[in-house]
């Protein structure tokens, strides 16, 4: 059995860099126990954008592990990342290699500043964003939750800014809602929260800040049941978006009855 969700409730689709996307939930493809698990979870997530990493082909392995054996590039939008790059030069090299694969000119740009926290090096990130944007790349920049960096990334030509909720793979949820809200309120390009979402309510409350979408990987892949969690995440993202658009009730410190005060019986 199933049921119909009127997504028509959200009239405006997500548009980034001139392209419309059918889902506000983007997912990574790392850390799954098997490719079959990965594909089931991705299908359940309803994601259109899936991120992939660029790595050397392992020449010692008979059984090639390239992800294109599993992921149909006609059905998904492949967004290559530059994960593992610690300076602008490396990130630019990986982005160009990814582009040469021929799918698109998009990149999820990561320039990492520290191996322990995987937090971005914003100086390198800005430099790489400028270079790649000038070359025509559509840069989606993974960054911290600093407004000033986000503004500079927009100026540098990023088509989307991707502040973290919390460190990659931590599952700590949104550490600083104020920062995320402030970034969204000040930027013109879409804001996609990337990293740190650990469970469905994290995704829901992130979307309620008004941001345009979420990218996640570990939150789904490291759940006990990734397919079920992927479904939960899809609903949570839609739910948070709708709640944002619906306009929540005001908070009050005193109670207000839901039933009429009048019409009570007599003694």
């Amino acid at each position: 059995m199933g049921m119909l969700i009127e997504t028509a409730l959200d009239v405006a689709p997500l548009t980034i860099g001139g392209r419309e996307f059918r889902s506000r939930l983007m997912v990574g493809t790392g850390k799954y126990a098997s490719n079959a698990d990965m594909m089931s979870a991705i299908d359940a997530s309803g994601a259109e954008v899936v991120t992939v990493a660029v790595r050397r082909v392992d020449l010692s392995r008979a059984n090639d592990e390239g992800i294109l054996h599993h992921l149909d590039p006609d059905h998904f939008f492949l967004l290559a990342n530059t994960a593992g790059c610690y300076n602008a030069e490396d990130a630019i090299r990986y982005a160009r290699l990814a582009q040469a694969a021929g799918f698109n000119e998009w990149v999820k740009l990561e320039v990492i500043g520290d191996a322990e926290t995987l937090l971005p090096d914003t100086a390198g990130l800005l430099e790489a964003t400028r270079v790649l944007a000038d070359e025509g790349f559509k840069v989606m920049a993974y960054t911290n939750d600093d407004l000033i960096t986000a503004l500079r990334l927009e100026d540098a030509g990023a088509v989307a800014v991707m502040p973290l909720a919390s460190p990659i793979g931590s599952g700590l949820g949104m550490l600083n809602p104020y920062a995320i809200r402030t970034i969204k309120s000040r930027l013109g390009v879409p804001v996609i929260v990337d990293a740190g979402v650990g469970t469905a309510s994290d995704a829901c409350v992130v979307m309620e800040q008004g941001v345009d979408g979420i990218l996640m990987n570990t939150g789904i892949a490291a759940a006990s049941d990734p397919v079920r969690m992927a479904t939960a995440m899809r609903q949570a993202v839609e739910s948070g978006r709708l709640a944002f658009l619906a306009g929540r009730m005001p908070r009050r410190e005193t109670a207000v009855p839901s039933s009429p005060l009048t019409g009570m019986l007599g003694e």
Partner: protein
Amino acid sequence: MVNGAPRQLAPRSTVGALLGTLGIDPRLVVVEHNRTILRDRDRYGTLPLNDGDVVEIVHFVGGG
């Protein structure tokens, strides 16, 4: 050097021949030759490999 490891190739080998030897489908990889990305797969067959060349063969893998 291919993907970081020294590799003995036949004389007058090409990128295309290397991929063939390795059993790699060219459409699923990207090749960088001496830090230049080879964007045109049609030229793999004619691009010669010389002593000391550095070749990187990359593809997409699962990542977040």
